[in-house]
């Protein structure tokens, strides 16, 4: 079963660049004179790699959030971190600072995490549901602010913002992909580096403290790392919801293993999940690609509910 899944995943990764509005034949991708060459190397391959790393980053971030905030509902999206990044990116667009979007997106996610942490430090550790409510309130606040931005921006800018908030993996060339690959390797390294602390935190904060872990410092470092990585993702692809929330749960439910042993699988399958969603989004036969967020939700939600029902039995 396990090997079959890995095999299937690699197959999805390999075939993904070959399908889309224009089908590409394998024979032509090394022939520089053909159009297939351009499409494969400049559009499809960067896009597949981008999808993989964005999915991987979001899934791993979900795991980190669920561990640190001690709530299975937390993810960069449910707690408003991604909305913060989205809002700040929109601000950059309205201010005419389009070349600084990544920086703004990072600021947005970092600001949200700082707000969450200041509020969380006033709660007892048992009150994590309050924090979730704060995150939801923040998300609403951000979308209201986004509405204000729509009103004060001109047509061109609002179009740009709308396109951005839909989430899209449309890129040309490898420039943006490199940044996301770096972010992916960075977050994977950080989570792996703190694997032992995460193991302790999965028991309880008090327990981690007693085993010598510097809980506050570990939480800060992990959350800042996540906000850097998620900020970079959002600045390039816009907000893509749901991946961070469901992938960790799906992997945990299927494997029935403790989360600290699942860092690599969650990273890998999070990537595969988004590549698969993108593959579907590109091949539905519509005139333009449907937003990736639509596919992740359509595919993810029913499967997620199925798993929850199965687990309760």
């Amino acid at each position: 079963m396990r090997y079959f899944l890995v095999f299937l995943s690699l197959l999805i990764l390999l075939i993904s660049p070959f399908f889309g509005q224009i089908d590409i034949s394998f024979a032509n991708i090394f022939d520089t004179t053909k159009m297939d060459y351009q499409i494969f190397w400049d559009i499809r391959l960067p896009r597949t790699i981008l999808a993989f790393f964005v999915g991987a980053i979001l899934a791993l971030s979900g795991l980190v959030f669920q561990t640190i905030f001690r709530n299975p509902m937390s993810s960069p999206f449910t707690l408003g971190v991604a909305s913060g990044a989205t809002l700040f990116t929109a601000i950059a667009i309205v201010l005419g600072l389009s070349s600084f979007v990544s920086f703004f997106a990072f600021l947005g996610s970092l600001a949200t995490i700082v707000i969450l942490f200041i509020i969380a430090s006033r709660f007892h550790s048992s009150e994590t549901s309050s924090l979730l409510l704060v995150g939801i309130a923040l998300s609403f606040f951000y979308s209201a602010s986004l509405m204000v931005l729509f009103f004060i921006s001109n047509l061109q800018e609002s179009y740009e913002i709308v396109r951005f908030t839909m989430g899209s993996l449309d890129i040309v060339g490898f420039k943006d992909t490199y940044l996301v690959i770096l972010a992916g390797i960075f977050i994977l390294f950080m989570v792996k580096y703190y694997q032992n602390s995460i193991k302790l935190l999965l028991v309880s904060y008090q327990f981690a403290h007693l085993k010598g872990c510097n809980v506050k410092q570990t939480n800060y470092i992990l959350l800042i790392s996540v906000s850097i990585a998620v900020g970079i993702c959002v600045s390039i692809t816009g907000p893509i919801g749901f991946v961070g929330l469901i992938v960790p749960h799906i992997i945990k439910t299927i494997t029935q293993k403790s989360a600290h042993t699942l860092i690599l699988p969650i990273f890998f399958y999070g990537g595969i999940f988004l590549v698969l969603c993108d593959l579907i989004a590109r091949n539905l036969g519509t005139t333009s690609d449907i937003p990736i967020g639509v596919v992740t939700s359509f595919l993810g939600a029913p499967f997620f509910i199925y798993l929850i029902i199965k687990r309760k039995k």
Partner: protein
Amino acid sequence: MLKINNYDSLILRNISFELQNKNLIILGSNGAGKTTLAKVLCGIIPSLNVFIEEKNPSGIYGDERAKLINYIPPKLEVYDDFMSVEEFLEINKLYSYKSIDEVLRLVNCEYIKNKKCKNLSSGESQLLLLSSAILHNAKYTIFDEPTSNLDPQKIKNSFHILQDEDILQNKIIITHNLNLAYKLGFDILFIKDGRIAFNDSSEQFFSDANLQLFFSDSVKKHDDNIVVNL
């Protein structure tokens, strides 16, 4: 040496005592501040008034703190749904030479090894916590009601483990089980409304006069056992 000097908070008032190579039992009614005191001693509630081997437990991290003091809560709390007993004990194995199997045999609970922590009964979780304390083997270990969920047979087994100086040294045991406290024979610290009301030997504490003073007529001595007088 474990030392706390003039500790004051909303719950505790002017707490001072020292402990040198000795065990201690902390008694007191519900809400008297026993658990709070335990959390202050191990640094979960930060305080500058506590010193263990001259070090302040809320100011040090890593091995330095873990080897000094450990606190065993009354209930097992594990956030992760799928963590197994074995995995849990592995992260607890710090300064003990005993193996996980050995310790599980000691607490008479070998069959839980491959279970998930979430699926244990309250008694089994309590024995798991006891095992974790043995594997951690800190210089000082605070047990918060270590026998509250156990059946009589398991209480007896736990009593022998807590009594054994070779298994764990320097234990601080918070309990409501007066007979356990009496039979262990460790020094007694009695807390009343956040203040230390008694701090002396077991013999002194379990004299008829003191029993009457601290528990009025709710307990009595019977056949050299302390029983609840119903």
